């Protein structure tokens, strides 16, 4: 992997400055079922296509931010700071529902 990511603070930097944080997941309420917890803890979507991901600029500004990336081409489509609005991966939502 040698693509670049546009950090909202630092600009375009090679991917090895960053740390991948997975796709956004909604932490279940404590009232959630065991299956929902298991889904949250152990299952990850494996999408061939565009997805939103957390990335951490570990070698520089230490910002966690959101990246929209095409997993087939590693093309970075968008990077942005997290503004507090919930971001969830469509597929993982569906998986939670089907798990219920």
């Amino acid at each position, binding site marked *: *992997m*040698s*693509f*670049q990511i546009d950090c909202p603070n630092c600009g375009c930097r*090679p*991917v090895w400055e960053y*740390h991948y*944080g997975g796709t956004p997941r909604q*932490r*279940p309420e*404590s009232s*959630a079922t*065991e299956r929902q*917890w298991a889904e*949250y*803890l*152990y299952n990850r979507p494996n999408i061939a296509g565009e997805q939103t991901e*957390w990335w*951490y600029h*570990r070698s520089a500004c*230490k*910002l*966690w*931010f959101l990246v929209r990336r095409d997993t087939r*081409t*590693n*093309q970075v489509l968008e990077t942005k700071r*997290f*503004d*507090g609005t919930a971001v969830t991966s469509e597929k993982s939502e569906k998986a939670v529902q089907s798990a219920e």
Partner: protein
Amino acid sequence: MLFILHFALFTLHFALFDGSRERFPTMSPQQSDSEIPHSGTIEFEFDGHRVRAESGQSVAGALHVAGEHIVSRSFKYHRPRGLLCMSGRCPNCLCTVDGTPNVRICTQAAKPGMVVKSQNAWPSVKFDLLRIFDKLHRFMPVGFYYKRMYKPRWMWPVWEKFIRRIAGLGTINREHGAEGVYDKQNLFTDVAVIGGGIAGLNAALAAAEAGVTVTLIDEQPALGGHLRHDPDLACHGSVSRAKTEHTADTAVALGVNVSPSDAQDINDLIRRVTEHPAITVISSAGVFGCYEGNFLGIQQGKRMIRLRAAQVIVASGCWERPLVFENNDLPGVMLASGVQRLLHLDHCQFPGEAVVVTDNAQGYRVAKQLKAAGTRITAIVDVRDNPPEMADGIRVFRGHTIISANGSRHVSGAVIAPLAGHPRQSLSCRWIVQAVGFTPANSLLYQNGCKLRYDESVDQAVVVQHAPAMYSAGAVNALHNPRAAALDGQRAGAAAASEVSGTALAAGRDERQPHSSPAASAVPLSQSSLSCHYVSPSGAKKKFVCLCEDVTEKDICDAIDEGYSNIETLKRYSTVSMGPCQGKMCQSASIAICARHNGQSIAETGVTTARPPEQPLPLGVLAGRALHFSLVRRTPMHAWHEKAGAKMGDAGNWKRPQVYSSITQEYEAVRQRAGLIDVSTLGKIELRGADVVKFLEFIYPNRFANLKAGRVRYGVICDDAGILLDDGTIARLGEDRFFLTTTTGNADAIDSWFRWWLAGRPEWDVRMTNVSGSYAAMNLAGPRSREVLKKLTDADLSSDAMPYLVASECKIAGVSAIVLRIGFVGELGYEIHVPSQFGLHVWEAILEAGREFSIAPFGLEAQRVLRLEKKHLLPGIDTDALSNPLEADLPWIVKLDKEDFIGKESLARAQQRGDRNKLVGFRLSESVLPDLASLVLCDGKLGGRITSCGYSPAIGGTIGLAWVPANLARNGQTIQIQVNGRLIPAVVQDEPFYDPSGSKLKS
């Protein structure tokens, strides 16, 4: 056949070339340019005798002059091989130079005293007894080792050894190789141009003049591409088959309005490129990979350059391909461009007669150039019926091709025939020169995701869709005419530059590439006529397709008949294109043969996947040093430790003292008097804000709401699965001000962990500062430590004013310090954090103050024993990715009645389920020291493992920590630990091994 080595080539092409230091110095920047004026002569050694070379001549050129025409023996049949391509592409001239195997001597400049040795021959390259394998070829058909040598199975290692001895390339000299240093360099540029031929030079100049920075990478020692060795090319046009020719007009039709006169004066062009301030030229450097994000891997001698480019222009040109005919590997059979390189770059001659086999203008040019150099041209054998070129009085056989080369150690004649194969006639000659077209160097385009399609009208693959930010120019676009290539280069350079500067041409991106089939009027070569441009019509057996691996046309046909008809499986089974040339010489012919034998078109046959490395690489280049990327961290007291003779060890990036004097002495100092350890490497985080308590309550399973200002608490961090990640202390210095420590190894991970949970909660008022490097820290421990510290501070250190687990801010030796009364080693102790610039001062002050109490510095090794006696665990050593704090003997930490915290749900379920395994302390019944991870056996079955152990002076025996099944985790229970295959009983102990009541700790 090709033996096990093929496997190595298939999986890791370059592995064969590793092991010694300088493998292919063909690209060494230090090598002298073969074009520099020759002055004086030098001498070097070839296989034990002396060879004279003109200064600046290549080793191969000097051997040619000296009449040494056999320079190597082939891989499988040990057939004599001579010079072929002279451009560092083919495998024929691989020799061992000054101990470095597999050097291509055709691009290696001769140096005085150089020792050159031939390879893969016994006893010598001139007389190789192993040539017997050439006679045994019918016992070694394609893939024979897959069929014969694995039965009986025990014989395979014997065969393998035998095969390795007789087949292959140079031998690695393990003594050699300590010299020199492999290095890495990182560069970036707006536009990278790969290839310094006419197209690349024009592309670089056009881009630079548009105002962007350009890096031009060329693998030859001097710029100019084919024009370096083919001086008539510029005047006489193309190097390609004349049937379908792109011309300057074609390029002009693409909408580029530039002066074509640039193609005329190559030297002027080179001068303008090298003098341009915005162009950096990297010569003698091969691009071995083009990775995503336009990240280029470049080898220049012993250096790997990693070049990031905004735009990449591939103008890598083409290389000449050989024709497949009987005995086409005899010394004396050469490529036309190889002949031209010897003529014009190495100033060699070709005495005697030559036959030129051709299907294009190149053949006529080389014939005239040879004639001018004194060679008698017996004939030009032209595959075409009506060639347009003038032969200048040389006899031309039209519609003919070559059937075979005669001779055993060198060419003595040629057999030619009409394309139908009959009637044959013999011509006497010493040289057979092949000029049958070029293969585009397009593997970098494939690598980076460009889509290419074979275009029959130009007989090569052309790009139909470019990868983003990637361009191609010149011969890879089938533009072989220098003027057309020049214009194509200018077009690509201008387009790439405008893309960089954001002023994309109004015409839009779609028009930045030439249309894929510019020669609509071209006469397509029919399939039947096409194959004769690659393979001569005869049924002979020794028609070599792949010179690297000795694969013949018959081998390929046999492999297809055996079912390996797909080009990819054909490659793997027959090993065609898997040798040192990586298909450069054989790819075109193998595809043509595969297509013909399958009754398919060349387009339908496809190509094998192009992968890095494009050229064989010494592994040293990949593994070279990158000093500025291997961070070393030193504490402020580092110099003191070294001066005190401490044995230093690595802890992540940190250097830490392991031991100063001896573990026993340091242990005794701490337990009986006072000791001081440097703990500056701990992760340190400061948190401020109104919501810090809420945050800590959420992060830790511990309770923090009741932690009063001025107090410190031990805590562990879990993830949502309840797995223990790290431990540390949390000190509340003020109402909304906290000071946290993490373990050394997890400092960065916990920093990231905190920020991740905070990132999703922007509404929380928590401000976090990583102060790990800002504070030096040391732990003063031992029964006399209060007396030591009292001498350095006004603060009241009495056990009433400052009891166990108090955090205080006071002055130590005149420096503001955070002092935590905690005791990892189980004694009265103070963890003192001071600004790092005062670290050494405070360290020395404490040691000075403690001198009357015989204080001693102690290292990590003593600390490990001290903490083990207290059963204090080390996260990541005593715990793993399955350990939760309940089972790790820390259930008191987990407050399941809290509202929510990370890991609560999982820990609640774990508690309901009950413990499965537990971390326990044990005392071994014998004084042996088991290895870490020694097994705990229960009734002969695997039950657990030990994670820490050591000799405890307090106990007088071996103690440790171990994971055991929960039913064995009872005080006094005997467990069995396997040590050196023997079971040794050990007793589980609940209490710490030292000071179980904690009275010393709390004194």
